[in-house]
């Protein structure tokens, strides 16, 4: 970057997470210090993603990068306004890095095995600045694309092997071909930024960290297919993403990059944001289109597919955020380069959101085909509190749970499906021995039941019945034959439901029964929860032999129900105990049951 921007740059993480940790105050402090010392430099907003994101570790917010031309950038973590004075005086003015406050070795380890392509700009450029985007290959992809014929653009995408990143994994180039082949000039392009899967937040990260990159990907698609109108359907729960993207769209209109005769490239493209209103089913493409039309977001049967009859009955192409973001990079570096990354069936990189009981929760971008073990242990530092790894839930409510044995599975579309889960949008929720798998199945079913639109009977009534059974089991009233009944219902609901929500809703139940049948049996036969997580089955007692007398439980108890003195085994007062499970979670030695 030294050749382009011969200036000192300070990049500050300003996501909801960053802002919650005081990023605004840090920015103000930098500006004030710069003014005081007469330093010329740019203070920019880095990719601003909640919690983790950008480079993955905003859990250590506020993260600040100091980029001095000709020198390697230095990252500081846990920056407070007080530290800013020190950084400016020692590092920027005297050139002495404040070594004590630099991000530790885990930060490099976190980045080591990753391959950041789609995220290459997220976190390294000022997300709101068009100039920064242009200085990092911005809009060179679309310029290359318009020199080709639309069909050649589609062929290039086919050649790259890109598959839709929204979950289904349908080849993107083929999808574009369908819509391009539909008759009529009036076509629509939609970017699905609904991202309703609990546990996934990569789309948000792209929207907030590289909004221009998304716009460019959509422009390439619009040119290839021949669409003049585009929508980005963003869920309303992402206010910062909407705000950033709207700003980027406004700037593009101002500069003539969008609208009539985009950038003088000879095609027209209008782009609008449509904010969702809180319905998971709107991630399904036919429901999403109904929602844009101002109706209830109910899916309809396919065919006709959207490519033939979509938004306002016109041919429509829908891809998700990560897919469009990939498209830009295919055109920067070529389809051959892109298809050289990944495995036979899955090309390129995939972004995963790692959450749950893991040390470094965050967003990681890895080449497809890397194993789950590498992602969990090498990139993300392993399991929290050094507990035992139990399972990883992949693919959100539509996916499944993979047990410890499956940890060496590759992360690509086909391997995951073989293992009984799916890639889905890329959320990986890591679970340790304190997580009850029956409860997790109940949790997902509760979610899909609540989000079911209610149009078709198997989904509306079937899921409710399954949930009743699971609730009974977790409360200790399970009956002989419940597991078999659940399995039967799963198969039927999958077959008979109208849309993807119902067709995949039983997956978490099926996969937990498949791998953790013994836990179901323990609940039903012995009224016992092996991971001590189902409240109704918990006894709340300290196991004397296991207790290390550390007092952690005593400190965490919100109602003072635990008696403890240094060197003594803790005792739980059952009269006072509200069964909140705080102590159970806090105990590192599994000494409470």
């Amino acid at each position: 970057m030294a050749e382009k921007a011969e200036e000192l740059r300070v990049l500050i993480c300003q996501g909801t997470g960053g802002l919650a940790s005081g990023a605004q105050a840090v920015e103000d402090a930098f500006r004030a210090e710069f003014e005081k010392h007469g330093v010329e430099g740019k203070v920019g907003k880095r990719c601003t993603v909640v919690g983790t994101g950008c480079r993955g570790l905003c859990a250590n917010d506020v993260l600040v990068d100091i980029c001095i031309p000709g020198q390697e950038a230095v990252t500081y973590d846990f920056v407070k306004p007080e530290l800013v004075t020190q950084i400016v005086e020692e590092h920027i003015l005297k050139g002495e890095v404040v070594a004590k406050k630099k991000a530790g070795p885990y930060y490099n380890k976190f980045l080591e095995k990753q391959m950041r392509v789609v995220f290459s700009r997220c976190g390294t450029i000022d997300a709101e600045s068009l100039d920064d985007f242009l200085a990092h290959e911005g809009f060179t992809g679309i310029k290359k694309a318009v020199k080709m014929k639309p069909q050649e653009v589609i062929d290039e995408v086919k050649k790259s092997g890109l598959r839709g990143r929204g979950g289904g994994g349908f080849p993107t180039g083929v999808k574009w071909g369908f819509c391009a082949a539909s008759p009529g000039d009036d076509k629509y392009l939609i970017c699905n930024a609904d991202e309703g899967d609990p546990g996934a937040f990569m789309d948000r990260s792209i929207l907030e960290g590289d909004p221009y990159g998304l716009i460019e990907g959509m422009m390439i698609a619009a040119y290839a297919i021949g669409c003049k109108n585009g929508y980005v359907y963003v869920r309303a729960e992402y206010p910062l993403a909407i705000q950033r993207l709207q700003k980027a769209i406004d700037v593009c209109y101002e500069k003539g990059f969008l609208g009539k005769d985009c950038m003088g490239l000879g095609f027209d493209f209008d782009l609008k944001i449509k904010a969702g209103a809180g319905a998971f089913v709107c991630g399904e493409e036919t429901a999403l289109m109904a929602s844009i039309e101002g109706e209830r977001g109910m899916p309809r049967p396919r065919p006709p597919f959207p490519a033939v009859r979509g938004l306002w009955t016109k041919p429509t192409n829908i891809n998700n955020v990560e897919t469009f973001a990939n498209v830009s990079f295919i055109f920067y570096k070529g389809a051959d380069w892109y298809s050289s990354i990944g495995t036979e069936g899955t090309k390129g990189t995939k972004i995963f959101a790692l959450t749950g009981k893991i040390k470094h929760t965050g967003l990681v971008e890895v080449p497809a085909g890397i194993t789950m073990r590498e992602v969990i242990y090498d990139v993300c530092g392993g399991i929290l509190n050094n507990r035992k790894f139990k399972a990883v839930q992949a693919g959100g409510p539509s996916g499944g749970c993979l047990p410890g044995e499956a940890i060496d599975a590759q992360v690509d579309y086909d391997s995951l499906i073989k293992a009984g889960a799916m890639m889905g949008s890329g959320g990986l929720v890591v679970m340790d021995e304190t997580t009850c798998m029956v409860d997790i199945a109940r949790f997902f079913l509760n979610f899909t039941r609540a989000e079911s639109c209610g149009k078709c009977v198997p989904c509306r009534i079937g899921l409710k019945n399954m949930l009743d059974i699971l609730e009974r089991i977790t409360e200790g009233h399970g009956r002989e034959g419940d597991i078999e009944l659940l399995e039967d219902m799963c198969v039927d609901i999958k077959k008979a439901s109208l849309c993807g929500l119902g067709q995949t809703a039983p997956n978490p139940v099926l996969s937990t029964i498949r791998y953790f049948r013994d836990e179901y049996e323990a609940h039903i036969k012995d009224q016992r929860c092996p991971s001590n997580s189902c409240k109704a089955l918990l006894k709340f007692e300290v196991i004397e032999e296991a207790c290390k007398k550390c007092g952690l439980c005593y400190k965490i108890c919100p109602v003072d129900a635990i008696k403890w003195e240094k060197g003594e085994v803790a005792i739980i007062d059952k009269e006072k105990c509200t069964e909140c499970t705080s102590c159970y979670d806090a105990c590192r030695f599994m000494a409470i049951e």
Partner: protein
Amino acid sequence: MSNTQAQAEQEEIDLSQANEIIDKYINMKGALMPVLQEVQEAYGYLPEDCVQLIAERLNVYPSQIYGVMTFYAQFHLEPRGKYIIRVCMGTACHVKGAGRIADTLSNRLGIGHAETTEDLKFTVEHVACIGACGMAPVIMVNDATYGSMSVQKMEEVVKKYQGMD
């Protein structure tokens, strides 16, 4: 019913703001949702009078509007509290104990999911996922996000807002 709520119903609702919003969208395709979203932003909820007005001016049946409003989680037909506490119930938060946070909050304020305190100060909502999974468990108070929640931290947050006007 609380006093404030009763008062709100007795008072005539000023429809001029709603009219302005409808003017902006009246000729647009798919206008209903953006109109509802903006009216709700202006009034804090969707008063019945506004729904009638929207129905007349956009030429749709009120039943259709109610169909849309009750379908999406984000539309509200009742006045809501000044501070809206959203407890994230996503997978990551669930695994890390969101249920416990929600229970304590309910005990503390005496209201459950989608309920508002009588003084119209707090509304509690359990939401699906706010995309801050890296900081789970998470709660939001209006636009401010509070991550890595524990029962104690939650108490502090509630105290802070109880102390404010």
